[in-house]
């Protein structure tokens, strides 16, 4: 089967070095020139199939949003490959990316910052369609936008208003209509409901799932909220410190997590009803800085089961049973 999106060994680094003089450090009596590099994404590989919802979870700073922005080439990848429908877009420049961006659209976290405050709703939703070239006429574009706005739950009275006249939930609906206006095949949703209240969150999640069934696109769904990712995803990937530590079907991973970090994360999740039947695993301390990655496994500094091999060798993401992959030495015989 052909994958819609294929990301392999993706790497992303950011140079956060201070000014020239601050970079000069004296080490062992010698003057050294030192750069500080944040290792945001370290060799991440995954695929998304047509019509699939892939959820990416992890705590803040684990690199999930960086992956999203790298896929859509808002950041140039530092290493690895990105393929859309088999087409390698890793080295595409701005111009060549234009047609690709019609296939990939994004929904952002902050509905207050992601809409241009000076554009009316109609203009916000029709703007991406203008890039489709001569495919549509002006009247056609407006008609299509109206249809979309109606579909996401906004009425004709809303089209000439400005974003500030809407609530957070309504703005997120506008953002969704904008993303869908060019009929994308993949929608990247970066924490689309985190800024919303619980009752509005449920409305938006239901809407997003209905639209997916209707239009048949795929989601890359990024969130830190475990119950949301559980609800929405077919498959999930768990990230830690820029590494993908476990992937697999959402149901299986939630019922039987294999990587110690996944276990710790899932057992820490508060829940209103029955808890997951996961042996509670308390991990000590906090995420190390991405400026200096630990040697070997990224999680070894906090893992209660770490042994000597974990500090020596970086575990690779390996499939042990069909459909699931884990990056952990403990699971090797």
């Amino acid at each position, binding site marked *: 089967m052909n994958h819609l999106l294929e990301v392999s060994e993706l790497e992303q680094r950011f140079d956060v070095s201070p000014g020239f003089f601050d970079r000069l450090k004296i080490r062992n009596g010698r003057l050294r020139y030192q750069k500080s590099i944040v290792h945001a994404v370290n060799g991440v590989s995954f695929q998304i199939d047509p019509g699939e919802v892939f959820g990416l979870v992890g*705590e*803040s700073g684990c690199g999930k949003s960086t992956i999203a922005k790298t896929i859509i080439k808002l950041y140039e990848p530092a290493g690895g490959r990105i393929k859309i429908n088999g087409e390698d877009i890793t080295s595409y420049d701005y111009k060549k990316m234009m047609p690709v961006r019609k296939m990939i659209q994004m929904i952002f976290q902050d509905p207050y910052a992601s809409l241009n405050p000076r554009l009316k709703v109609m203009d916000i939703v029709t703007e991406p369609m203008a890039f489709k070239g001569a495919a549509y006429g002006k009247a056609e574009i407006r008609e299509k936008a109206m249809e979309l706005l109606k579909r996401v739950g906004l009425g004709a009275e809303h089209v000439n208003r400005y974003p500030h006249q809407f*609530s957070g*939930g*309504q703005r997120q609906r506008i953002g969704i209509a904008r993303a869908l206006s060019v009929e994308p095949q993949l929608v990247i949703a970066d924490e689309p409901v985190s800024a919303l*209240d*619980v*009752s*509005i*969150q*449920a*409305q938006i*999640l*239901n809407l997003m*799932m209905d639209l997916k069934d209707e239009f048949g696109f795929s989601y890359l769904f990024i969130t*830190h909220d*475990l*119950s*949301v990712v*559980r*609800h*929405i995803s077919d498959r999930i990937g768990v990230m830690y410190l820029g590494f993908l530590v476990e992937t697999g079907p*959402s*149901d299986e991973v*939630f019922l039987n997590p294999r990587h110690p970090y996944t276990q*710790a*994360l*899932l057992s*820490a*999740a*508060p*829940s*209103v*009803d*029955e*808890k*997951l*039947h996961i042996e509670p695993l*308390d*991990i000590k301390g*906090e*995420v190390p800085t991405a400026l200096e990655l630990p040697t070997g496994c990224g999680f070894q500094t906090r893992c209660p089961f770490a042994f000597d091999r974990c500090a020596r060798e970086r575990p690779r993401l390996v499939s042990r049973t069909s459909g699931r992959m884990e990056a952990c030495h403990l699971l090797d015989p």
Partner: protein
Amino acid sequence: MTDKLLSIRGLKIYFHTFAGVIKAVDGVDFSVDEGEILGVVGESGCGKSVVGFSIMGLTEPPGRIETGEIRFNGVNLPDLDERRMRKIRGKEIAMVFQDPMTSLNPLYTIQDQMEEVMKLHGDMTAEQRKNRCIELLTEVGISQPQTRLKNYPHQFSGGMRQRVIVAIALASNPKLVIADEPTTALDVTIQSQILKLMKRLVKEHRTAMILITHDLAVVSEMTDKIMVMYCGRIVEKGTRDDIINRCRHPYTIGLLGSIPKLASRQNRLFQIPGMVPNIMNLPPGCSFAPRCDYAKDRCRTVHPELADIEPGHETACYYPVER
């Protein structure tokens, strides 16, 4: 009701703005006992934080306490002047705020900030104060407290800062801790560490706690009693089990149904239609009526009062849902 540590009756807090009067809290009654954890839940703008701030005497203009009693240990707090309130604030009632990044002063060391409370409310010597700081930091799980005391807030991570804030809140052995979204800014694994820590400390010291949050999952794991607020009023209150497992108010039911389940998979989430009404322009009658599936004419005209449906379990609804 004199034996309760804190009892609030008929509390109304209005904000007088140029655009009109905002009834942020409109008639709230509840009480908290020693060693008890009360959860206050609701969506943004429902007035839950305003209640918390008013107990600390931190209601600021244009906000004003219109009527109502906040009785703490038999004393009505709104009657006290600022000088006497300062004796209570920080010593008897402490607060843990949401944002660990901004609630510590960046210019002072952790030790300075921890000792401030002790200096104001005690007569300890410098030596005793330092020892108490070390003791507290150890208690909240910060390693090497001796050296950490000399550090500044920026040298701590978010989770560590929240631990320090919990330590400061407990420094003077308060009788009541008000925690306003204490873990909302933190990651899941750190959140669970901090919540476990707070629950353990509160139970050990028999401190009462009011936990204000929008996160029902957190509330269900932490609290003994829960009250649910909507548009400045309490819509339902009771024990944790009353609310989580036997709730009767349509809003509470909707709120619980909107949360995706962790342990099982469902196809669609239950959703409450519509939006929270504008608080300046609340509908007559029950504020929830426009979004409620069960609303009848009576709901749209007269506001329902809180009433017992079983002992200790109250709801403000004419037609509590049978389950």
